[in-house]
């Protein structure tokens, strides 16, 4: 589904990602961990194609198409979706209007999806204006449920979410990734940034990666990586690479 080869990314003239190689197959969910400022969000934004994230070398191939320099919306049309960690508040733009503008769904279908994540009252509210942390995340999940991307990137889906909402979020994200479908038939893939690993209480991930100082230092079983990081911190990953 996604193939990233030898990717180098500059932000404000400084190289933030060095020589990234990442392969995510159809139906796979990958976890991305790493200390603050290591470049995790930068990688997601570079895959989405945001301005300010300049790819200086390497390539991103999605569903066999080179998307390295493709505009953001065309990537979205190809099937890439993203849950933002800090989505912008857009005053005046109603969430319901945004959903209608970005989909071919009828009003009824959108309302039903909104209901499923307890967001129906928010359809007439300005997007993210005055939303709490949990409401913002639910709004993001709702937008993705409407968009139905084949490949979902989630930037810290747990942050700012209380326990009750976490369970809802976990189930909804598992739904976005077709975790209810047998792995052989599953087509949706995901890349999830997590600090706490709480998301793994709700869904299984196939692979984990640790990003430190703009480089992927190790790949492995996500639960094992989480355990090592919990016990020994990211220092252990640094040492791994040095051996």
């Amino acid at each position, binding site marked *: 589904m996604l193939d990233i080869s030898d990717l180098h990314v500059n932000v404000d003239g400084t190289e933030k990602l060095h020589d990234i190689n990442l392969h995510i197959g159809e139906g796979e969910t990958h976890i991305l961990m790493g200390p603050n400022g290591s470049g995790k969000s930068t990688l997601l934004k570079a895959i989405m194609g945001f301005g300010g994230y300049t790819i200086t070398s390497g390539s991103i191939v999605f569903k066999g198409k080179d998307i390295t320099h493709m505009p*953001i919306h065309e990537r979205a049309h190809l099937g890439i*979706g993203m849950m*933002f960690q800090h989505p912008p508040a857009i005053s*005046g*733009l*109603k969430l319901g209007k945004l959903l209608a*503008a*970005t989909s071919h769904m009828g009003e009824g279908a959108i309302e039903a999806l909104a209901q499923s994540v307890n967001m129906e009252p928010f359809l007439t509210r300005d997007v993210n204006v005055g939303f709490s942390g949990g409401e913002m995340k639910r709004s993001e999940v709702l937008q993705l449920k409407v968009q139905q991307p084949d490949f979902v990137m989630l930037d810290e889906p747990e942050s700012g979410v209380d326990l009750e909402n976490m369970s809802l979020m976990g189930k909804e994200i598992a739904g976005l990734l077709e975790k209810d479908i047998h792995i052989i038939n599953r087509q949706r893939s995901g890349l999830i940034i997590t600090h706490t690993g709480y998301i793994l209480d709700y869904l299984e991930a196939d692979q984990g990666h640790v990003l430190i100082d703009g480089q992927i230092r190790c790949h492995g079983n996500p639960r094992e990586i989480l355990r090592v990081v919990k016990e020994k911190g990211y220092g252990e990953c640094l040492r791994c690479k040095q051996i």
Partner: protein
Amino acid sequence: MQTDITDMEHLSEKDRERLALTGLEVGMQNRCGSFFQIDQNVVQTTCGAEGVEMLPIKAALEKYDWVKDYYWNAVPKDKDKYTQYLAKQEDPQGLVVIAHPGAKVEMPLQACLFLREEPVQHVHNIFIAREGSEIHIISGCASSWQKEHGAHIGVTEIYVGKGAKVTSTMIHNWNPGISVFPRSATIIEEDGTFLSNYVCMQPVHQVNMYPTARLVGKNAVARFSSIVVATPGSLLDLGSRAILGAENTSAELITRAITTGGTIISRGHILGEKDNTRGHIECKGLILKDGIIHAIPEIEGTLTGTELSHEAAVGKIARHEIEYLMARGLSEEEATATIIRGFLDVKISGLPAVLQKQIDTAIDKAESGF
């Protein structure tokens, strides 16, 4: 001068379209009364609403002796050269709306002022909402598509009686060579509510106005909302002022301004001079192409019991907002238009749905130009 025009349906197709853009229902659907003045000729005055009268100003002054007390009262004759010009006219034209005590009409009345051939159109309007009445007036001001230069000078005096409510929605649709000088003032008595909406999204040479609301009775409320777009060559010098002259009065002045190359001066002034008064000015400006948006909010309090605030912001659309919508699949142009549409979406509480729809339509029409 063509003389066979007795109502809007006799206008050319192009001109009817221009009037429709100002919110006027040419066929009178959804309207309970209509006044139509072309240049200096009143060609139509009809009103089917119970308890409400629409009269040409001369007829109103003849019919009711007391109307003269409202004539040149809220707006002084010697305010400036434009009011002086109007005061000198021997043959005043314009509309008087009288809502008699207790008359409540949900359906809007429409007033159409159309500049067609003469160099200057002048008009003197008086809206009187007597105790406990409620009226909604939509004034559509436009010029003929073939009218290149001209001026419109208009005095509007609005009197909101005790417990009355007046909504005045003005939509402008001029040409790049037309200059417009409305001079308006409103007096609001106890428990009265005044909502003023102004929409100007089409090219014009110059609009210059600074309507004032004087809240003279307890619990009076005033709200001014303006949605304006300045295209290249347009100068919109706009403002609104509220004088909180009685206890427990409040006012809100809200502006959404967009320049695509023209100049907007957005003034606002609230004076809090009685106890328990509240006022807020909000001006948000978007510079889509190099132009000028100059926000001048003034708040002035004279005692401890008044609370006044203002917020003003001028800038461009944030890049990360556009990219956020692009990540959901909208192209850059679609994302930009969606954000602008939201920016202009000022929902005005207490406005009949039919008027809100008219404002939305004016915005939609203009949006295709961004």
